[in-house]
């Protein structure tokens, strides 16, 4: 047995190049390997490995915890500072409704227009001007 090279060739050409010798080895290594098709089992294992690595590499995402309704409501109105403001406004509204402070009466009357314009002008010292305007010639 030899490497598969014809020895008589080498004898007739004793200076056979290294390239020629190597080429025989490279050709052998390039020859399609017997039964070189991957099996279905192998391919399935490769795909399972790929999925396993993907699962291991995936960032750990914590599932969003269910928040109680009152926490969600508090967040919706802007948190505790907003809630405190709303509470103050509510208490003030109830107090005004129940007690009816006299200091607010004037504003209420003015707001509802129960004074006529002449009385209002008189209150502010504009009586004469109004009279002039009203044709008091």
């Amino acid at each position, binding site marked *: 047995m030899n490497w598969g090279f014809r020895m008589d060739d080498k004898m007739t050409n004793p200076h056979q190049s290294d390239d020629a010798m190597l080429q025989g080895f490279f050709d052998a290594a*390039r020859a399609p390997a017997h039964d070189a098709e991957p099996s279905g089992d192998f391919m399935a294992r490769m*795909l399972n490995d*790929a999925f396993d690595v993907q699962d291991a590499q995936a960032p750990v995402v914590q599932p969003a915890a269910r928040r109680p309704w009152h926490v969600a409501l508090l967040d919706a109105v802007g948190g505790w500072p907003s809630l405190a403001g709303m509470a103050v406004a509510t208490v003030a509204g109830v107090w005004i409704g129940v007690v009816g402070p006299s200091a607010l009466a004037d504003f209420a009357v003015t707001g509802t227009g129960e004074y006529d314009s002449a009385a209002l002008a008189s209150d502010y010292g504009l009586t004469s001007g109004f009279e002039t305007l009203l044709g008091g010639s």
Partner: protein
Amino acid sequence: MPFDCDTAEDEARLLMHFASGDRNAARVLTQRFAPVAFGYAMRRLGDRSVAEDIAQDAMLRLWKTAPDWQEGRARISTWLYQVVSNLCTDWFRRRKDYGQAGDDDLSQVVDETHAGAEAQLQHQARLVALNAALMTLPERQRLAVEMRHIEGFSNPEIAAALDTRVEAVESLTARGKRALAKVLAEKQDELGFQDG
């Protein structure tokens, strides 16, 4: 979403999708490159079971490097070849350390000559001798020679894979071939192969 896998950019995009957990990208990459890794290993080893183990190891390394894969890097095929080749070389070395490979395998192959099997034995003898000789080369010379003369990659592809210039690849392959020829010629004389 369908994926192309024709260019380096396609490959980088697929690996990016893989890293983000895209199952379809995993399927496309597996179907495209697992047979490639297996084929490389089978050509080097000729042993289906070992070739499957080595290809599996190489593919795992590809998956783990996916998040860090940079576009413009070597193609997956040349990257895989380097990994498979190094794993095969490690396997040969381990076997040799345990007295199970190298010259022992070659002697066994040569001794088992029987009618009708000579061509196959010659083929195996060449593979064993070539692998043993390749193991004597420095890693980059070995990879350059294997990729150029066995797997048929172009010099620019090898240069990209080895992160060097084309001229350096030419130098690596030339020096590698000279060293291989010397080792194989000595082995031929040492084992006293005779015609017939």
